């Protein structure tokens, strides 16, 4: 029964992933990325991670992809003519090493695969994750808030125009 959900989601995720790296226009990459994120949110639901699925939609699809789209709009890309890479045969080497990497990665993760037991009641709810965050992971949680603060300050500093020389800072 779960296959009915998993196969379309996986197909959409793979198609979106190919779209991200194959699209000519960055805006098409962003839309493809959005489809990957939505498909992965569906797989999270099947994997009993309701809260993470909601976060995925809100943070990734809602905030991050919108940010990407804003920057794509801001930058007004000119059509880039031709593959102007400075390293020769970079593309071919990328595909070859990518394929080798896939083999290594598959052998590593499939060795760790196991069977699923039925999930207990309340597994993956916001309550359970919240309890874990505020007990076991309290220190990382507080550090995450500092990281967010650093991100906000960095965005303000990077986004502001440089001060004119000789100005009062």
């Amino acid at each position, binding site marked *: 029964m779960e296959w009915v959900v998993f196969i379309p989601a996986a197909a959409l995720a793979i198609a979106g992933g190919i779209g991200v790296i194959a699209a000519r226009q960055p805006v098409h990459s962003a839309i493809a990325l959005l489809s*990957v994120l939505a498909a992965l949110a569906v797989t999270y639901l099947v994997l009993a991670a309701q809260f993470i699925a909601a976060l995925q939609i809100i943070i990734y699809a809602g905030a991050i992809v919108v940010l990407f789209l804003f920057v794509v709009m801001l930058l007004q890309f000119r059509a880039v003519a031709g593959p102007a890479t400075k390293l020769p045969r970079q593309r071919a080497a990328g595909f070859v090493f990518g394929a080798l990497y896939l083999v290594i990665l598959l052998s590593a993760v499939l060795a760790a695969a196991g069977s699923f037991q039925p999930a207990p009641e309340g597994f993956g709810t916001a309550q359970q994750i919240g309890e874990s965050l505020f007990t076991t992971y309290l220190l990382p949680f507080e550090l995450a808030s500092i990281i967010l603060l650093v991100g906000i300050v960095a965005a303000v500093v990077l986004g502001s125009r440089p001060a004119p020389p000789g100005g009062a800072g």
Partner: protein
Amino acid sequence: MVPSTAYLALSALLFTLGAVGVLTRRNALIIFMSVELMLNSVNLAFVTFARQHLSIDGQVAVFFVLVVAAVEVVVGLGLIVNIFRSRETTNIDDVDLLRG
């Protein structure tokens, strides 16, 4: 029931797609989206292992990955916009002052 093998294979495939994107594309924004693709594939592996071991720790790890990814996108896009302002390009081959 879908075995964890299927989820892990999907995760590995998406990670490889992201890695190939970083290696083959020259547009800084698309490279950045490929990095996001890799982060998401790792999240899928985390959630799969959390389900397999019935331990919530994997899902908490995804939470932290989400936080760091959000900050990383903000800082990275700010850098890309600044590079575009000063050099009128997002092709990373044009930004090579550190090249030996």
